[in-house]
């Protein structure tokens, strides 16, 4: 296990909860004016409709650790990352960070399509608290990494989405962060660039950079992280070795979705048409499936057993 358990704690969440009011259709002005009583009752109802996106999450990450957070859509992992990044304040609990944080929440956030890549790099750096001179010094490395040397002076509206992704990652990665928060962004780039990104993250990690990543790419979570956590309906239900956590995640997915369970029981590919539909409609399932096929031998093994069992049963019935 790579876990540098001797490193000091650089990121800690203690009892972090975040509540959001749920949007309820507002009252038209007419109702408010003509039926104030009714409008007031509706307002009171609105005050009570709320959602705890993150509930009582407590964990610590040590210097140099690669910590991944997995979970189904809507489980609160992205909200948790936003709380860690300080973009939103916890309703309860505290977040502690020690060190310079660089966040990569969404590619192209802060990019202005009308101005050149060069100007966007500098602007992004300024937004992240750097000076112009520092950014000009970092620029060549960023451009080189993103592979945009001949395009950097073109307006960004001419860039492909892959070029956006590359530039966005290059900026966050070359900011010399001490803590890097990454949300589900690497999935966008092509495989070659993804590989380059994970290589770079590994290099950063070797230099003592702490990484917290939210991802659906379960294969990558298993390959690169030291520890992983599983989020479920706002709670962190498991923290531990990535392989175990990913396995648990897949099991839970199978439990919660009858289609997924059925697909697993039928040997995943038994009904190709249904599988294809699932892959198209449910990105969560697609990611789980991909991970199961590539990166998770344990799951694969289990699947084979299940298939064998299923097969035996079927055979028995046929007999």
């Amino acid at each position, binding site marked *: 296990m790579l876990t540098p358990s001797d490193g000091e704690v650089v990121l800690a969440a203690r009892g972090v909860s975040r509540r959001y009011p749920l949007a309820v259709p507002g009252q038209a002005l007419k109702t408010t004016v003509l039926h104030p009583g009714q409008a007031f009752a509706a307002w009171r109802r609105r005050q009570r409709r709320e959602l705890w996106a993150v509930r009582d999450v407590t964990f610590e990450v040590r210097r140099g650790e690669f910590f991944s957070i997995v979970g189904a859509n809507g489980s609160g992992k992205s909200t948790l990352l936003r709380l860690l990044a300080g*973009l939103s304040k916890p309703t309860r609990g505290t977040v502690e960070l020690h060190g310079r944080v660089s966040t990569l929440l969404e590619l192209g*956030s*802060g990019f202005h399509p009308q101005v050149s890549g060069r100007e966007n790099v500098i*602007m992004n750096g*300024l*937004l*992240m*608290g750097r*000076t112009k001179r520092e950014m000009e010094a970092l620029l060549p490395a960023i451009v080189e990494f993103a592979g945009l040397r001949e395009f950097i002076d073109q307006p960004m509206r001419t860039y492909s989405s892959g070029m956006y992704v590359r530039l966005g990652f290059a900026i966050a990665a070359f900011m010399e962060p001490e803590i890097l928060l990454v949300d589900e962004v690497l999935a966008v780039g092509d495989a070659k660039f993804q590989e380059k990104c994970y290589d770079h993250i590994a290099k950063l990690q070797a230099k003592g950079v702490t990484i917290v990543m939210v991802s659906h790419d379960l294969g990558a979570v298993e390959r690169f992280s030291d520890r992983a956590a599983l989020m479920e309906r706002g709670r962190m239900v498991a923290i531990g070795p990535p392989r175990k956590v990913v396995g648990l995640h897949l099991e839970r997915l199978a439990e919660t979705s009858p289609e997924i369970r059925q697909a697993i029981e039928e040997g995943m590919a038994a009904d190709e048409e249904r599988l294809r539909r699932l892959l198209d409609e449910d990105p969560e399932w697609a990611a789980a499936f991909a991970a199961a096929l590539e990166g998770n031998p344990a799951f694969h093994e289990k699947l084979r057993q299940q298939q064998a069992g299923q097969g035996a049963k079927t055979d028995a019935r046929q007999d």
Partner: protein
Amino acid sequence: MRNAVELVAALTSRDLRLRYQGSVLGWAWSLARPLALGAVLAFALGRVLGTGVTVEFLLAGLFPWFWFQGAVQGAAGSFIGNGGLLKKVRFPRAVLPASAVLGATLQFGLSLPVLIGFVVWAGNMPTAAWLGLALVFGLQLGLVMGVGLFVASVTVYFRDLEHITDVLLTLLFYATPIIYSVDLVPGEYRWLTYVNPLAPIMEGWRSILLDGALPPAGHLGASAVLTAAALAAGWAVFRRLEDGFADAI
């Protein structure tokens, strides 16, 4: 701090460049509104109604007014117009309204030679009192920043304020001595110009440029107190609300 200053400068320069990108006349367009309105009003008020109001009189009010209006409107939309940025990146939020105000101020600064050209052409030579322009300029900048911060912050939670602001700006234009002089306001309504921090500022521009005299110290003092209050209130409201911007937008 150095970073915040560079950030404001970079945002402002980007916005100004983009605004006039591809237009032939470029920043000269920022002169179009005050000049056109000045010409029309000089005809309507001066000739048709026969009030004897002059072009330079009108322009000395209209140029600073359009600065005020442009800065407040620009600042008002600066948070809701940058929702994506506020949601995804952590940076000092105040740079957005600050850059909107700076942009409008630079445009005003660039149009100032044109205004001064008109003033001199009309026979008003610069005097020592013109140094007082810096004071009036500073007062207006502070007022704009305070009002802008307030409107921008509250608009995030209460979108109607953007439209309310537009209406109020129109009312303010006529309630402030811009196209008429304070002396013409009947005594019983004169108090309106004392509670309006913009009134002494407008009076200041005109009396310095056209009469070569500073406005009464009492007027400027009252405006300074109200401006300081607006700035403090704007900042306090902004600080109180800024933590929720990323979630509310």
